């Protein structure tokens, strides 16, 4: 700490300096407050960029650039023994699961190919692919988590079997429930991660209705909001497909 001794005349100079410092201090507070008000009053976008102030959305998009740069399909989530899984998986959210518009017998997984053709797959078609287990700590965007045991087929395997090479070169995948009430968009690298499965069993039994019977997405590198229940249609795109929660102000990427 530097100390100096000054006479009373010079001391006046320090009084003036103090006053100026405080004027600047209060001016900066006012500026910060104005900046804050500006930010919270910024207009909100529509669609998948909706729900939050535009500048915030811009930063979230930049965050996505940072994280997708760090992302690797080789980063696997920790898996647990089956015995560690909860006997009762928590149920959160029933959008898109309305019983009226769903006929289990008529259900087909529809995959809209790049050329416009649609594949219609039955659950038995899907079950012909190798079945794998994913027992992992499922994380909800609300902040809770639960170790749960899911089984199904790797999306990447299904894509290979049905020759979706062109499609999986695209940037995004979009999924809808059969009634189109719930829909998500997921970036392709997360979709092709080997623990991302089209899941038809929970705890070794067929998915219950409230967990998205007959087929749901399990994608451990994302929060639960992306784990769409009861997949109706799958499509591909180079632009972001609509996303139910992103429209309500959540981050589009939500990568873990």
């Amino acid at each position, binding site marked *: 700490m530097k100390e100096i001794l000054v006479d009373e005349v010079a001391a006046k100079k320090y009084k003036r300096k103090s006053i100026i410092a405080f004027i600047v201090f209060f001016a900066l507070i006012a500026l910060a407050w104005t900046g804050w008000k500006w930010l919270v009053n910024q207009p909100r976008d529509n669609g998948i960029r909706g729900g939050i102030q535009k500048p915030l959305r811009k930063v979230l998009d930049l965050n996505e650039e940072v994280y997708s740069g760090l992302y690797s399909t080789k980063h696997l989530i920790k898996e647990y023994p089956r015995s560690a899984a909860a006997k009762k998986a928590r149920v959160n959210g029933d959008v898109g699961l309305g019983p009226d518009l769903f006929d289990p017998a008529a259900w087909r997984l529809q995959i809209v190919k790049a050329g416009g053709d649609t594949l219609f797959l039955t659950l038995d078609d899907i079950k012909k692919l190798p079945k794998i287990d994913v027992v992992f700590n499922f994380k909800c965007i609300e902040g809770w988590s639960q170790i749960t045991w899911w089984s199904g087929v790797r999306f990447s395997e299904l894509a290979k079997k049905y020759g979706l090479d062109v499609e999986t070169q695209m940037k995004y995948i979009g999924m809808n429930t059969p009634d189109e009430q719930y829909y998500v968009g997921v970036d392709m690298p997360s979709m092709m991660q080997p623990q991302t499965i089209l899941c038809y069993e929970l705890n070794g039994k067929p998915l219950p209705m409230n967990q998205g019977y007959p087929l749901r997405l399990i994608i451990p590198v994302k929060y639960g909001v992306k784990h769409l229940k009861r997949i109706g249609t799958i499509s591909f795109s180079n632009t972001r497909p609509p996303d139910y929660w992103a429209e309500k102000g959540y*981050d589009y990427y939500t990568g873990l």
Partner: protein
Amino acid sequence: MAVKVIYKHTIATRWMHWINFPVLTIMIWSGMLIYWANDIYQIKIGNSVLIKFFPEWFYTKLHIPYRLSEGMAFHFVFMWLFIINGLLYVTYTGVSGEWRYLLPKKGAFKESWQVLLHDLHIRKTAPPQSKYNAAQRVAYTMIIIMGFGSLITGLAIYKPVQVQWLMTLCGGYEAARLEHFILTVGYVLFFLIHILQVIKAGWNNFRAMVAGFEVIKENKNAQNK
């Protein structure tokens, strides 16, 4: 009659201190918007809840409910400012040599105890000090370690798959979330004591954090600091 001018805080320290204040406030506020969506923490003695984080009136008063998406957006935007400001501060403190005033010395905890007793008017004399007393050194070093802890635990909750090793280091996903929360409670406690101490220390001390210097009239005999 002479006047002594003591240059106490450099301009860099002052900027970083005052930037941190609103940024940390926004981080804590947006953190509460996020926490609300799964507000499971409480302090219990036996079966009776001593403190629930947080009671309903608290949420209502601060307009916290049903703002998770907004909370996440603000949190993941302002975290950059919090991180950058914190790293700049640590770098600056290291390079400028200011750390000499800030790191606790040998016997810091014993001396901090004496400072505490003095501040509570139990002990008459305070131990001798330079810029900061032993208790301040402990507190200001602690708070930087806590900031680092928030960064680590925050990143562990935020990207638990991409930086799984960090999450494991924190003792798991749930543990990291709890640690992140406890650190925040720590900031609030720090803030409360800090404010009390600033009020107690008086005008000259506060001016130094704004203007940089203290002004002391020398003709008064012993400066009772």
